[in-house]
């Protein structure tokens, strides 16, 4: 019997017993649904981590020289923490040697940041993310202003008492008035607002727009670092990705020399890139995908057993039909194929339902949470393939029993 014919026959048989077929394929349906949902959520979380979270914290083709990693996704064991805290701080005096070592066309900046209370005459005091910056910070971050202006080179180098505030902070500190030209008070000193910056967006429901930028040499820096000449990070941005390694190696050499490290000693500073920040995420992502595949696999095994049982019942119920078909010239292969295709059609239909349900779960997660879940096309292909595969595997035994029935005995059974 040709393949297409067998599929049509299978569909006709399934149509006659819709409810029974549905329950038979339910196991596969649920298994595939979880597979699709988990893969979509993990995938969405990955995109979120890479694009929204880390992408917003670390600019393209850039790395930061830090005392210790800024972004710690996952656990850092206590021993590592102790090692981090023994490390020397990054100093203002480290900046110039690092900048001197950089290849041409590289942008750099340095900054210190912290949570500081900010006051305004138009609201109660608010806590803001205050960052004192120098160098080409705004070019690297590609951050512009929506109102007012950025710092001038003079303001940056002299450390004038001017600030740029984020859109959230503008709402909080100046809910009703234009903030440009007005003053905010940080640590008892007045700073003049010269601009309102663009939105940096949010991650996991946490806004990045509650920021204030001030020139590095402004007095506010003393509130960000307890040691007088310490800084939090030097940011380096190379013009092309292939220059990353070279720039990192140059910076590493300078820093090792400044920290007087012997060749056998490990770095006592961190060069943080988007990749290093994501290293831990890639690890948990692997586990998540594994769990997301392994757990539905159990469901699929159960689903396969259910289909096998129902197919065995179907063979018993339809012994008479098999007898007629054999009497009319059906070969063993014809009967085998008929039942194999019936079970795999059933299972594939279940898998398709599961894909639909899984995609619905993914869409629901997307609309209810900030995670941009994404149903990968490959997961749909895998889902359908799993459906067909489960059907074939669970159909082999019943189908071979059907094909081996003796036509005379089968015809006698009615």
């Amino acid at each position, binding site marked *: *019997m*040709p393949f297409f*014919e067998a599929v049509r026959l299978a569909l*006709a048989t399934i149509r*006659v017993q819709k409810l029974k077929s549905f329950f038979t394929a339910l196991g596969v349906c649920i298994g595939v649904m979880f597979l699709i949902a988990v893969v979509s959520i993990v995938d969405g979380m990955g995109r979120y981590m890479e694009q929204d979270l880390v992408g917003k914290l670390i600019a393209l083709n850039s790395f930061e020289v830090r005392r210790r990693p800024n972004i710690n996704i996952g656990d850092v064991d206590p021993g590592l923490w102790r090692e981090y805290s023994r490390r020397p701080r990054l100093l203002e005096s480290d900046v110039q040697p690092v900048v001197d070592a950089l290849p041409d066309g590289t942008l750099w900046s340095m900054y210190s940041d912290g949570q500081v209370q900010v006051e305004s005459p138009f609201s109660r005091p608010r806590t803001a993310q205050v960052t004192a910056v120098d160098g080409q910070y705004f070019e690297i971050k590609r951050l512009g202003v929506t109102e007012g202006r950025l710092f001038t080179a003079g303001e940056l180098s002299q450390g004038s008492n001017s600030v740029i505030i984020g859109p959230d902070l503008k709402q909080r500190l100046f809910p009703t008035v234009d903030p440009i030209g007005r003053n905010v008070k940080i640590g008892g000193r007045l700073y003049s607002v010269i601009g309102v910056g663009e939105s940096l967006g949010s991650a996991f429901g946490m806004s990045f727009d509650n920021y204030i930028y001030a020139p590095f040499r402004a007095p506010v820096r003393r509130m960000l670092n307890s040691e007088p000449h310490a800084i939090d990070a030097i940011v380096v941005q190379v013009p092309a990705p292939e220059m990353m390694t070279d720039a990192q190696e140059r910076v590493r050499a300078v820093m090792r020399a400044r920290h007087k490290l012997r060749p056998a000693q490990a770095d006592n500073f961190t060069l943080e890139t988007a990749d290093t920040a994501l290293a831990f995420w890639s690890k948990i992502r692997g586990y998540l995908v594994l769990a997301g595949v392994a757990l539905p696999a159990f469901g699929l095994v159960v689903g396969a057993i259910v289909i096998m049982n129902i197919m065995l019942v179907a063979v018993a119920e339809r012994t*008479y*039909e098999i*007898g*007629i*078909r*054999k*009497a*009319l*010239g*059906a*070969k*063993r*292969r*014809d009967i085998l194929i008929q039942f194999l295709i019936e079970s795999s059609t059933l299972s594939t239909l279940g898998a398709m339902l599961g894909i639909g349900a899984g995609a619905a779960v993914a869409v629901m997660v997307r609309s209810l949470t900030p995670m941009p879940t994404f149903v990968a096309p490959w997961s749909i292909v895998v889902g359908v393939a799993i459906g067909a595969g489960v059907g074939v595997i669970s159909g082999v035994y019943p189908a071979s029993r059907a094909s081996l029935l003796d*036509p*005379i005995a089968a*015809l006698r059974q*009615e």
Partner: protein
Amino acid sequence: MTNELEEQSLSTTAERRVVVSAAGSAPDKDWVIVTRGLTREYDMGGEIVRALRGVDLAVRRNEYVAIMGPSGSGKSTLMNIVGCLDTPNAGEYWLNGQLVSEMKDDKLARVRNKEIGFVFQTFNLLPRASALHNVELPLVYAGVSSAERKERAFEALKAVQLGERVHHRPNELSGGQRQRVAIARALVNRPSILLADEPTGNLDSTTSEEIMRVFEHLASTGQTVIMVTHEPDIAAHARRVVVLRDGVIASDDRREKFAAKMGF
């Protein structure tokens, strides 16, 4: 009712004796069925039941033969072997020049598909399929294309006056109509023999007569028909009646002689 064609094709005892005695050699093309010393034994829980004990049967093309016998005479076993559903333990069975008794499952399936058209007592139609689809089935397994299948099945149903009911399911048809669907199905692949097993067993006498008229018409147009029955009046419709008793052929007579014996 007897026409010339049937009269011509009717074999004589002497002719049959000749063809049956030539063991091991393929019979002349004229002979559709030749069995030589057909033996079939069943193992029924350690006890050997000898259903056939050496049946020599020869049927020439276009003959209309009834096989009769009481239950336990071996007529069902003979019908299963002649229909290629079963194989003998010993003896030869030549069907249309092929030595079927040596064949295995899949080859037998092909022979059933090409050479045999079955008509059963219980009709044996697929209950959920339309009359048309039921008639199409042998063509499906013969590998005929869908369009040609539909056309041939439709023609076959028209030939048994069911052209109007092709889309009806078996449960929407009367017993006689169902048996006519079964006949259409049996004939759709143009088999060498039409093999009917108690074709009127589940029908009332009026409908039985109707089915017998269909058989007579087929026989008169050159179709070889073999009918297994235990009813003498049904058997008397055939041109030749073979009576089995205890696994051997007890008598093999023309209809006239059989009718005389039975006192019709």
